């Protein structure tokens, strides 16, 4: 028993000591919805965290696999109590819990990813991944011969639906006849199921596979069948060197570093930021050699235009059933994009 007691005392002492040692460091905490080992979403954020960790005078930590709802509130609260200066919460369901905690800790900076609520000390941010998805759709649309593309998707939430729509708009910009078929796996990272989903799309005639999944399972399926694929999250060409056309990728590092820098210099303000291609938070992985040069040029030209301020969701846009949703000349607002729950024309599948 005495050993246990000394153990606890020692632990407390270590904690206190560590607390002192890093007292001058800016402490930055991250909350992830899945394990860092998911190979995708949380992994990408953690790469960003590592960039922050590399900064001088900053120390970081994270808690992974935190369920949305009360669990996340406890974790965020715990971080605030422990004196973390900046807290990044990286899932939609963390929004309300974070707002609650933010009210109790006015001196802590809270940053919520993928939501829309703000407070004096709570900002929100997201990346305009749909811009990169649009470009990847252009590549895919140019490469399809069967005019059927497959999209392996995780869960029918707006972020994913928006991505499918942007991809489809990109595809149809190059190839107005093409359709995109969607299969929901209801998993974020289950390589076998995701690969199987890709195969089911290949079996109905798809010859390019895109994905909103964390694992490279769909890439493997495309490689084995000798068709093309579009990755996600990071450059997935090592998994499918002959199939991989390109991939819309996340690059959170610069954004996180800049945010932490702003907090340190006192310039940080609570605002909604939605950076995109222009800021480098999303990007397109190098386009494969199988893609003809003129397609690459077209995509690069479009990328330049988007970086220069051109919008992706510009009317006229019909929905899946051919009903006009966005009139000629109109553009969708960020709010509409954030809550997008319908498919554009050219998508085959259901949003449930």
């Amino acid at each position, binding site marked *: 028993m005495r050993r246990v007691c000394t153990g606890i005392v020692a632990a407390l002492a270590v904690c206190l000591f560590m607390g002192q040692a890093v007292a001058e460091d800016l402490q930055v905490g991250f909350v992830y919805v899945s394990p860092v*080992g998911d190979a995708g979403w949380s992994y990408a954020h953690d790469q960003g965290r590592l960039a922050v960790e590399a900064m001088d005078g900053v120390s970081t930590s994270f808690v992974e696999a935190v369920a949305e709802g009360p669990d996340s509130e406890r974790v965020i609260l715990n971080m605030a109590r422990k004196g973390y200066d900046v807290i990044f919460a990286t899932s939609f369901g963390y929004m309300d819990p974070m707002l609650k905690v933010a009210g109790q800790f006015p001196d802590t900076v809270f940053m919520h990813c993928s939501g829309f609520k703000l407070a004096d000390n709570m900002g929100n941010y997201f990346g305009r991944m749909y811009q990169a998805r649009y470009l990847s759709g252009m590549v895919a649309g140019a490469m399809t011969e069967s005019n059927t593309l497959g999209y392996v998707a995780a869960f029918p939430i707006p972020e994913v639906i928006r991505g499918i729509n942007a991809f489809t708009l990109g595809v149809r910009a190059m190839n107005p006849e093409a359709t995109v078929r969607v299969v929901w796996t209801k998993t974020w990272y289950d390589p076998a199921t995701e690969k199987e989903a890709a195969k089911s799309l290949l079996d109905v005639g798809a010859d390019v596979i895109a994905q909103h999944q964390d694992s490279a399972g769909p890439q493997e399926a495309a490689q084995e069948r000798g068709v093309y694929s579009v990755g996600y999250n990071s450059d997935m060409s090592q998994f499918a060197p002959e199939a991989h056309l390109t991939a819309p990728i996340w690059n959170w590092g610069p954004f996180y570093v800049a945010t932490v820098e702003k907090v340190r210099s006192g310039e940080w303000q609570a605002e909604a930021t939605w950076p995109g291609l222009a800021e480098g938070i999303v990007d397109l992985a190098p386009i494969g050699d199988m893609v003809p040069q003129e397609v690459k040029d077209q995509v690069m030209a479009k990328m330049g235009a988007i970086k220069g301020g051109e919008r992706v969701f510009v009317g006229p846009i019909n929905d899946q059933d051919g009903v006009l949703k966005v009139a000629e000349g109109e553009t969708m607002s960020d709010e509409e994009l954030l809550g997008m729950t319908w498919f554009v024309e050219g998508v085959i599948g259901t949003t449930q």
Partner: protein
Amino acid sequence: MDIAILIPLLAATVQSGTPILYATLGEIITERSGVLNLGVEGIMIVGALTGFVVSLTTGNPWLAFFAAGAAGCLMAAVHGVVVLLFLGNQVVSGLAITIFGLGLANYFGTPFVGQAAPGFDPFALPILGNIPALGEIFFRHDVLVYISYLLPLAIWLFLYVTRIGLNLRATGEAPVAARAAGIGVVAYRWLGIIMGGFCMGCGGAYLSLAYTHLWTNNLTGGRGWIAVALVIFSFWRPQRAVFGAYLFGGIMAVQLRLQASGTTIPSSLLLMLPYTLTIAVLVFSSWRRGSTGEPAALGTTIEPRQ
């Protein structure tokens, strides 16, 4: 559904059924010796990680495959220690093995995420692979699928023809009588657990070495639990396990293909299909048949000799 869709569907059925088949066969051997092992999920995932890591570091998939089997044996041995040596409850110990195995694999697996390991690739068997339809369905897979065709037969021969298999079954049916007849019942239960663990580990490795060549946390995605269910479904017979595994793999493949062909049924409802059907088949088959073939002493502990 026309034939052009049906053939790839059946081929996919075989492949998605294979990891479950390995695990189901493993559980059958174990349960035939009278030990219930609900730790399949945990054993599979440890096998999957071990196989992946060994393949990544040595570049030798065969070595990796057997290492996965060995890891499965080790995990199963933990179950053996608890239920055979310390006479713990088998249901609870199995559950604990699942929790422990998932924890262990996710704990050590994180650094290996996002890498691709060499594994087994599909190839067409000579002659057989050229048979119309059947060739495409059964004989254009990877070597582990071909092994899984022979495995049920081998296990059937083992259980029903060899002396050891006979004694193992006797241990599962009537351990007291078997002991009286001079059979070392505890040793046979150990054998059942270890052999079963090997198959379960291999089933996990199928996911990380052949089905995909990837590792992520929670790679097994509940397939171990399906295997437990399929044992009962197959009335503890290795030959029937084939149908069970393929039936389940088939429903999964159909579910995805329904979506791909543009159904408007919500995906959550489609995902219930495999589980609902498993229950339906289970209820129907146990209701219709008088005896299910359940080893009479399944789940019992063998009291030490006084």
